């Protein structure tokens, strides 16, 4: 396993970790905005690491360049779709809870039936 292989597999592993983190964020976070936050941040970095992994192992530069383009396109698509989803969420009234007003209930402890606040409603 020459050093290039080691670095490549390390990059791939860390990329997968970031994807797992993004997915966990998607499942656990209470509302649209935090989920979007988790997804775009973690997955984009994960995608970069995964693209960088094979780029290290490939000798010719052009395939590394291709992987870079793949990542750029992924980035572009992720940011625009995240922007549009967030814009639609705001327009359809799922306002994010203001920092000043304490959230009606702490999401993890909140039992959907009893708590009527908007954030719980949107989570169930």
């Amino acid at each position: 396993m020459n050093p290039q292989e080691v670095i490549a597999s390390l990059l791939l592993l860390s990329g997968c970790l970031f994807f797992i983190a993004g997915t966990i964020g998607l499942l656990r976070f209470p509302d649209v905005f935090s989920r979007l936050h988790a997804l775009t941040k973690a997955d984009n970095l994960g995608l970069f690491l995964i693209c960088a992994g094979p780029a290290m192992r490939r000798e010719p530069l052009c395939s590394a360049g291709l992987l870079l383009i793949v990542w750029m396109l992924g980035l572009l698509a992720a940011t625009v779709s995240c922007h549009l989803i967030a814009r639609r969420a705001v327009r359809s009234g799922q306002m994010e809870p203001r920092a000043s007003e304490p959230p009606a209930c702490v999401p993890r402890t909140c039992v959907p039936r009893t708590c009527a606040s908007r954030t719980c409603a949107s989570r169930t």
Partner: protein
Amino acid sequence: MRAPDMRVPDMRVPDMIGLGIDAVLALAIVWLALQTVRSRDLFKAMLMFVVFGLLMSLAWARLHAPDLALAEAAIGAGITGALLLVTWRRLQADGHEPADSEHPPLPLWLRLPTAGGASMLVASIGWVALELPATPGTAGELAWQRIDDIGVSNPVTAVLLGFRAYDTLLEMAVVLAAWLGARAVAIELRPGALPGPAYAEVPLVGALLSLVVPISILVAVYLLQAGGNAPGGAFQGGAVLAAGGVLLCLTGRLEAAAQTSGLERVLLVLGLVVFSLAGLLVMASGGAMLALPGLWAIYLVETALLLSIAITLVLLFAAAPGLRRAS
């Protein structure tokens, strides 16, 4: 002579990692198919179907069918997913959500055995077929031996545009028939029925379009010329070009026109006409019907096919007689 980059690992040596990937991919595909069928909400079922299409393209890649991986990703998941979602949006246009009615056509005790029996039949017959020694002299081996006569080194393109060119020609007739059929049954478009004006004024979308649409054209042309010696070809290129067109429709840059313009009509029949005339000219000049003489003829026909496929898929997506630049 085989295309240099068509590396072909021997499938019989089961390397464990490859096996692991195949197993996970197979489980994911089956789970997604199950979700597509079982999820109560139709919108969720369609999304599951799109993801199923993407994983299917991975399965094609694993089965050493790169052309199919491209086609499945571009056509199977991409365009079909876009068609489904835009139809879903139009079905909702007047309010009510199409939901599955409670009483299925066949009771469960009848459905399960038929479906189970069908898949057992397919599995057992497939197993028997896999067990048998490969039949000698199949059309595929002959294709590999005679591939140089076509002048193209990608075997799938050689089969599609050389050995079985007649199939591809009739397939283009099917694509044209689909558009003609869609036009024949089309509902009169209520103004603004084309989805997407809401995204018209978002600044970010403008930037996206100015980057992605040129890239989709570039990729389509690359796939077209790469079709000769590497995975690619007119159909995959056409689907990628259509994706650019679909983006323009979604973001309100293209509007539904009342009439199909002359140019659109010419583009629609271009693929079929160029292919037929090329074949007939070869026959008139003494050769066999549809024996495309050289590489230039194949690329000429492929360009016409690409344009026809792209315009047909975009018009099917827009479900409008024609398209024009948004005023």
